[in-house]
């Protein structure tokens, strides 16, 4: 069974049937899944969750697909929440955690959203799974499509990192490299979605897709012993993940799994593409699109669809939005690797540097339970950190090595 009632326009409240639609026909507002929360509150408990699979599907009552009838679960989610004592000591934070979501099946949090979208696409009897991607989504779509026996088409900006392109190609996806920015890729795909019966996970499947990100809230609360953290630092491209993690905490409070959350949500972007942060700085809810120029390609969305809702979340939670200077992106990657042994991609570098800024400014109290979300794997963006390689060069000779070591 499913607890989904309908799709509802987030702007005007018009209701729509559960179909592959994402836009309100009247006001163009985004559609969101509505649930029967009374029934969920009656049926869900910490015990029912504990008895579920060790994946994001342990929270199936709060997701818009039902795997009890079959479907695909690649083991996405239930990733480690690491107590980051070394990094915390350095930053003066006593209760710092890193949610390491870089260990998902295709090595980014995008497996969560795609897991929901794939199951929904199967339910709607699509044969082709597709996406417009800044990289991580392409890999997740290709992997899930392979497992589900679907054809996959992934569209991405042609200048994408090699690791992300290979990381999608290996699953047998049809790759489409577009000469243009992500926003241009997205526009092309929007027009294709209108005229082809393809399940574009981030377009016509978007209402279902986006719900997958809530599980990054549920898991952290469960792993903290059924409580929401005091602060979260979350990377933002479209702004969807950030708003959905907060929605996850709120829902858990609403259905009685945790106390009402009081989490302050901090949103992080790289300075070279920070349209949401710019609007926040101007006290505006209207995001002006920008042309991205950032090393953090997974966050390079100049026209963020959920920017409006992200800004509302920042203000509702008394959090903030901050931009990290471009050179600090790589510093953040190195800092996390050198202190906690976790190798993240550029988006994670943005988060760790944002965390460092918030700690330095004294915004985070030393004892607050703080969670930094690391959402993608460092092996995907090797180009960004190639400069760390500086080996001691030697012949296979004892004395030569000793000499080379002494010279270091």
């Amino acid at each position, binding site marked *: 069974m499913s607890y989904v009632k309908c799709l509802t326009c987030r*702007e005007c409240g018009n209701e729509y049937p559960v179909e592959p639609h*994402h*836009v*309100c*026909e*009247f*006001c*163009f*507002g*985004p559609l969101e899944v509505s649930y029967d929360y009374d029934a969920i509150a009656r049926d869900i408990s910490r015990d029912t969750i504990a008895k579920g699979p060790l994946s994001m599907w342990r929270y199936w009552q709060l997701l818009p697909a039902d795997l009890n009838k079959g479907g695909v679960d690649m083991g996405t989610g239930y990733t480690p929440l690491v107590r980051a004592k070394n990094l915390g000591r350095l930053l003066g934070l006593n209760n710092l955690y890193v949610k390491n979501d870089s260990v998902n099946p295709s090595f980014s949090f*995008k497996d969560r959203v795609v897991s929901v979208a794939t199951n929904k696409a199967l339910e709607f009897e699509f044969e082709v799974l597709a*996406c*417009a*991607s*800044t990289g*991580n*989504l392409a890999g997740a779509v290709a992997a899930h499509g392979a497992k589900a026996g679907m054809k996959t088409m992934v569209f991405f900006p042609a200048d994408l990192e090699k690791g992300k392109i290979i990381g999608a190609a290996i699953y047998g996806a049809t790759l489409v490299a577009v000469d243009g920015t*992500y*926003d*241009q890729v*997205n*526009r092309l*795909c*929007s*027009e294709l979605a*209108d*005229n082809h019966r393809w399940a574009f996970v*981030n*377009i016509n499947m*978007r209402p279902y*897709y*986006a719900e997958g990100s809530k599980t990054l809230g549920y898991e952290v609360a469960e792993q903290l012993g059924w409580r929401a953290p005091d602060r979260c630092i979350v990377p933002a*491209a*479209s702004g*969807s*993940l950030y708003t959905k993690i907060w929605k996850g905490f709120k829902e858990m409070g609403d259905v009685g799994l945790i106390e009402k959350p009081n989490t302050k949500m901090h949103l992080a972007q790289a300075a070279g593409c920070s349209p949401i942060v710019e609007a926040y700085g101007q006290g505006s809810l*209207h995001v*002006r*699109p920008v*042309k991205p120029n950032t090393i953090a390609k*997974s*966050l390079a*969305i100049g*026209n963020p*669809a*959920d920017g*409006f809702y992200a800004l509302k979340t920042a203000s509702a939670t008394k959090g903030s939005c901050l931009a990290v200077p471009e050179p600090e992106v790589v510093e953040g990657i190195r800092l996390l690797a050198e202190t906690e042994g976790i190798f993240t991609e550029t988006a994670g570098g943005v988060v760790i540097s944002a965390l460092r800024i918030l700690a330095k400014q004294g915004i985070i109290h030393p004892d607050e339970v703080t969670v930094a979300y690391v959402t993608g794997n460092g092996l995907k963006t090797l180009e960004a950190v190639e400069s760390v390689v500086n080996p001691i060069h030697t012949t296979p000779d004892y004395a030569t090595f000793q000499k080379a070591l002494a010279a270091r």
Partner: protein
Amino acid sequence: MGNITVRIPTPLRRLTSGQDRVGVDGGNLGEVIVALNASYPGIQARLCDDSGALRNFVNIYLNGEDVRFLQGLKTATKAGDEISIVPAVAGG
């Protein structure tokens, strides 16, 4: 049939009898929308709010460029131009 091509997304095709592209005339984007509304009544209210500004979740592209990088509704248009109306989408 006008000289500027406007590509119509699915949510608006009920207003254009299912056509996915229509032709109109107009010297700027605002005029194009008024002309569209004359042929397909109701379309302006879908694209613009009560104050006449483009709605939050509507993206309009002139020959591939987001009109917010141009002059918005005042952006000049001419014969042969192609305009795309695209709802906002998520991603990453």
